[in-house]
């Protein structure tokens, strides 16, 4: 372990402890009506995790998320390589992808629902819409920035297009592509959950929305905690790998 990553781990630990303390203080301040305590939330989450019904919801969300992520990465890479290799078309399409990044995509959800119907395919499609953009944008720029000498070497060795991508472009562009996949992971998760929060009958997002009507603060806190811990943990691991790849490349 290097000094920097040890410092990072210590900072993360201090941060988590401070956040839990802040939560406990807030709880002491606003009381039982509005919040549950950190310990109470963890206890309730563990109790939920012991029930089969809760696991059905987790499995539903996990399936939608995993399918959406896989599709987003594959399609994003295809789009990214196509428009990264062809510089002109890359410059034509990239601003549109960037614009798609910054619009409130949730407004597109009714169209997705009308096209796919309520259920699994709509959730997956909505996750893909969110996740595909960063993967594609980062891959385009990564492939475009591969040093020309590498491509020329490939031509010299008479590598076909498939092997040029596999042996040259992909390894050379990997660090930046990975950054895109890391962001794609987060956005796909957000997209899938948003999909479940509106027009869905299963999954963690659905559970959150129905708990509002029931004023069930325990469920809301427990599910939110689960999602935040999952997202933060995976994203921290991906960030580590990301930094490692970038360090190795330079």
């Amino acid at each position: 372990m290097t000094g920097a990553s040890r410092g990072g781990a210590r900072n993360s630990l201090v941060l988590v402890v401070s956040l839990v303390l802040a939560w406990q203080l807030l709880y002491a301040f606003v009381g039982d009506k509005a919040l549950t305590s950190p310990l109470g939330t963890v206890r309730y989450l563990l109790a939920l995790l012991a029930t089969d019904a809760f696991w059905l919801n987790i499995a539903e969300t996990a399936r939608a998320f995993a399918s959406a992520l896989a599709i987003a990465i594959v399609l994003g890479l295809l789009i990214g390589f196509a428009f990264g290799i062809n510089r002109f078309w890359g410059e034509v399409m990239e601003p549109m992808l960037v614009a798609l990044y910054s619009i409130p995509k949730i407004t597109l959800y009714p169209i997705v629902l009308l096209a796919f119907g309520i259920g699994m395919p709509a959730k997956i499609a909505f996750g893909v819409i969110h996740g595909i953009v960063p993967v594609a944008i980062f891959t385009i720029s990564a492939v475009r920035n591969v040093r020309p000498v590498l491509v020329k070497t490939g031509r010299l060795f008479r590598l076909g297009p498939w092997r040029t991508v596999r042996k040259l472009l992909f390894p050379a562009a990997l660090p930046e592509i990975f950054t895109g996949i890391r962001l794609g992971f987060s956005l796909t998760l957000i997209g899938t959950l948003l999909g479940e929060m509106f027009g869905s009958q299963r999954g963690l997002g659905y559970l959150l929305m129905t708990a509002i009507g029931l004023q069930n603060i325990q469920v809301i806190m427990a599910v939110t905690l689960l999602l935040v811990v999952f997202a933060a943990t995976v994203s921290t691991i991906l960030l580590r790998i990301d930094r490692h790849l970038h360090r190795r490349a330079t």
Partner: protein
Amino acid sequence: MTRQARYRIAVIVGALVLLEVLCRIGTIDRLTMPPPSRIALDLWVMLRSGSMAGAMLKTLTNVAIAFIAAVLSGVALGVFLHGLRAVRETLDPLFATYYAIPVFAFYPLLIILFGLGDTPQIVIGYMLAVVAVIVNTLNGLDRVTPVLLRTARIYRMGPVKTALKVTLPCAAPHLLTGVKLALAYAFIGIVGAEFLMSQTGMGFEISFAYNNFDNAVMYPLIVLIIALATAINMTLTHLEKALLRRRGYQ
């Protein structure tokens, strides 16, 4: 206009024509999507009648509140954290993973805490926007040349005056990046929250129209929101580029 931009317009027009044809010949049925020409007509009628003026005003007001609060407090927090190395290093892991956390998952909790008014939506918009401002303020302040700080010291400026007169103007290009993201995120947050659960605003009107199968209202509204978000983003990107050019970048 560059050749790329002409091709881009051609792609968009081509896609619209294709959609129009697919809708007219019935490949896409009327209940799923009306033809683009029809949507444009509906949008024109809607804007002229002023039936959505109230919802638009509501959404834009809430976006403005969340945006202004995020920019003011984000810049202030950025300046503050820049002076406190230890606190900043502790918060670094939070900033690095913040956008991986599905902020919308907090919406049910906020509804329970604040009731189903404007507040939970504004808080979501603010939560999404503020961290982009903080991170970009820190980025900008990191790049202020030391000679400027020494000059400020020679003039015996206090910390607040130094920030307002020297460091913040110097960091302006990065601040503008933060401001741009903050506006996009505030918009995404407000419209998303309205869409999920609320009683007013453009996002609410879209989900209301969806639930009533009212495509004559839903599609024009979706187009309107996307056009608004894209116009705002393009304006700010343009400003950002102009500022960078004046500072001698590119």
